[in-house]
């Protein structure tokens, strides 16, 4: 029977069929960050369990660490104890920890592909909803809560109910100025923030095949904002070239065997999808959110829509926007380029490409937060940091920073921020902060112009 990419990975990981659509799934990789990791490792040992497979567990502090240049683990005092606990428990349990300042440290969903910890066809979990990012290499990767995380650490398995299959095909060619971020925001705007609930989503079509690997990670990152805890792209030569030579990717004879397996993973031609959507890539324009849910998104040259619900009215009020007015030209106070969505080298290059001889507009605070220590070093080796600094951006240390505002860094109440992150929720970037989600180029253009700006007209 014809199978989807998802079916193949799911079925090859069933340890036991639990009936009623449930399976006990083997989990091949576990990622821990500072907020979920220390407490999970403590809980496991406190309850008298042992880690089943410490060799499959990898940790990195990212959420509650300062990104101030020259930071230490003490700079954000509120996270210092959590990180100290993570260090102690990592040592006790024998898992690998990529600590601050070391290559490999970074935002958990940036470092896992970067190190080749995530590979096509494997299962990966993390106590973080954006784990779906890792599906960009063709893995089955999903976010879980604390109890499920303890279950995985103790058993190397998870009880899961099998989701249904959804495919979103992007056919055609993206127009200039349009990115993977715009593709997924457009899909969320079209289908809604809960369309993927209960589904594993595969992104396919010629426009997805044409995306570099880092852009596929961005595409999959926002699956959870459409309700899907799993998003994936079938592995292909782009994937294999990206993974070859990475620290934890297979080598030698293992590489050849792995490659043969990976090439068998893409969905069969006749495979059945419970929902199969198609979007024309060439019709997608640069996107920007206007409200407090990622589905409240419009094209940058559109007007703020009229409210259709109590939620819409509350969002307009919170965002301080007026229906019917063009969103372009709205004054901006902050810009954040970073997060597991858009903090990779290609994202920073896209932002840098907007600079020209311009400077950050007066009154705008603009941050660049590279996604990992390695990205930071690569960007610095290429001189990107000097260009950003000369233009008036802040060049920070890697971490989640203003995406989740769990590290003492926050957008001030009432301030308007164009952000390359993934959530525009009420209070997400700080109490009272107003977030507009957009691509790195759109964010950079907003920083330089001081207002929300259409990248296509920003020459």
């Amino acid at each position, binding site marked *: 029977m014809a199978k989807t990419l998802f079916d193949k990975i799911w079925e090859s990981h069933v*340890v*036991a069929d639990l*009936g*009623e659509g*449930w399976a*006990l799934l*083997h989990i*091949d990789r576990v990622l821990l960050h500072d*907020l979920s990791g*220390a*407490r999970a490792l*403590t*809980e496991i040992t406190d*309850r008298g369990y042992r880690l089943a*497979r410490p*060799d499959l567990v990898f940790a990195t502090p990212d959420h*509650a660490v300062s990104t101030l240049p020259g930071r230490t683990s003490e700079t954000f005092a*509120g*996270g210092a104890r*959590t990180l100290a606990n993570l260090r102690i428990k990592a040592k006790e349990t024998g898992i690998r920890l990529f600590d601050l300042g070391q290559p490999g440290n970074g935002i958990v969903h940036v470092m896992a592909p970067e190190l080749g910890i995530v*590979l096509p066809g494997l299962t990966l979990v993390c*106590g973080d*909803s954006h784990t779906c990012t890792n599906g960009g290499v063709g893995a089955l990767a999903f976010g*879980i*809560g*604390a*109890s*499920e995380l303890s279950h995985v650490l*103790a*058993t*190397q*398995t998870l*009880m899961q*109910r099998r*989701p249904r299959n959804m495919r979103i095909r992007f056919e055609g060619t993206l127009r200039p100025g349009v990115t993977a971020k715009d593709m997924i925001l457009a899909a969320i705007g079209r289908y809604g*923030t*809960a369309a993927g*609930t*209960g589904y594993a989503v595969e992104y396919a079509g010629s426009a997805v095949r044409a995306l570099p690997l880092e852009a596929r990670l961005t595409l999959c990152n926002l699956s*959870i904002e459409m*309700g899907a*805890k799993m998003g994936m792209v079938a592995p292909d030569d782009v994937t294999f070239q990206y993974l070859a030579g990475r620290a*934890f*990717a*297979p080598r030698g004879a*293992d*590489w050849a*065997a792995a490659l043969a397996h990976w090439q068998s993973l893409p969905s069969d031609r006749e495979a059945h999808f419970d929902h199969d959507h198609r979007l024309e890539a060439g019709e997608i324009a640069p996107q920007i959110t206007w409200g407090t849910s990622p589905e409240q998104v419009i094209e940058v040259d559109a007007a703020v829509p009229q409210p259709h619900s*109590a*939620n819409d009215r509350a969002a307009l009020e919170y965002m301080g926007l007026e229906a019917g007015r063009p969103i372009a030209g709205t004054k901006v106070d902050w810009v954040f380029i970073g997060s597991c969505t858009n903090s990779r080298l290609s994202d920073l290059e896209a932002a840098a490409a907007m600079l020209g001889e311009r400077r950050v507009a007066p009154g705008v605070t603009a941050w660049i937060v590279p996604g990992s220590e390695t990205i930071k070093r690569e960007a610095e080796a290429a001189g990107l940091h000097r260009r950003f600094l000369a233009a008036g951006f802040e060049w920070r240390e890697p971490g989640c920073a203003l995406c*989740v*505002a*769990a590290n003492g860094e*926050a957008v001030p109440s009432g301030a308007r921020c164009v952000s390359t992150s993934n*959530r525009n*929720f*009420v*209070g*997400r970037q700080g*109490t009272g902060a107003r977030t507009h989600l957009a691509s790195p180029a759109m964010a950079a253009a907003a920083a330089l112009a001081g207002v929300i700006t259409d990248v296509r007209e920003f020459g």
Partner: protein
Amino acid sequence: MQAFTTLTGIAAPMPRANVDTDQIIPARFLKSIARTGFGKNLFANFRYRPDGTENPDFVLNQEPYRKAEVLIAYENFGCGSSREHAPWALTDFGIRCVIAPDFADIFHNNSFKNGLLPVKLPRAVCEQLIEDAKLGGNARVTVDLARQVVIRPSGEEIPFEVDPLRKHLLLNGLDDIGQTLEHVSAIDGYEAKQKSAQPWLGGNSL
């Protein structure tokens, strides 16, 4: 884990869609490694004003909803972050059941692990239950998991669906790690087979 059997209590109306877990408990409160004590920061950005005093307009600051045990909301409740602190904050406050048209996947899973029952009922029914809840302390709602019914203050019974496995675990407060470890030989067998078929997944490369 705390079992959930049946509950009769005050229901708080929250007629909003997309109540995300950042609203339920903001990220700045996640640094404790305990599972308790999060109730005071439940809905903190709505419940408290910038000076830290209570916002009297917020439902959980009003009588009788300070003692609410059921919360009734609209679509996509619990979307966003996977933080299990969301069900911890709800249960620490005293809420043991959320009724909504649908729930985000990860929140839904997390709730069942913490004695918090998410009940899916159609939007029109949730609207009725919201109107019931607005009647306040004399309009208690009953949620009976064993019989799979919500009982309105009028006595009308509304059936709901629940996954049989989740129901069994929640009714009995079962620890699923203990259950899974009964499969230990199957897990070992799986790993041995994987090691020979796909050696790159563990061992050498790691």
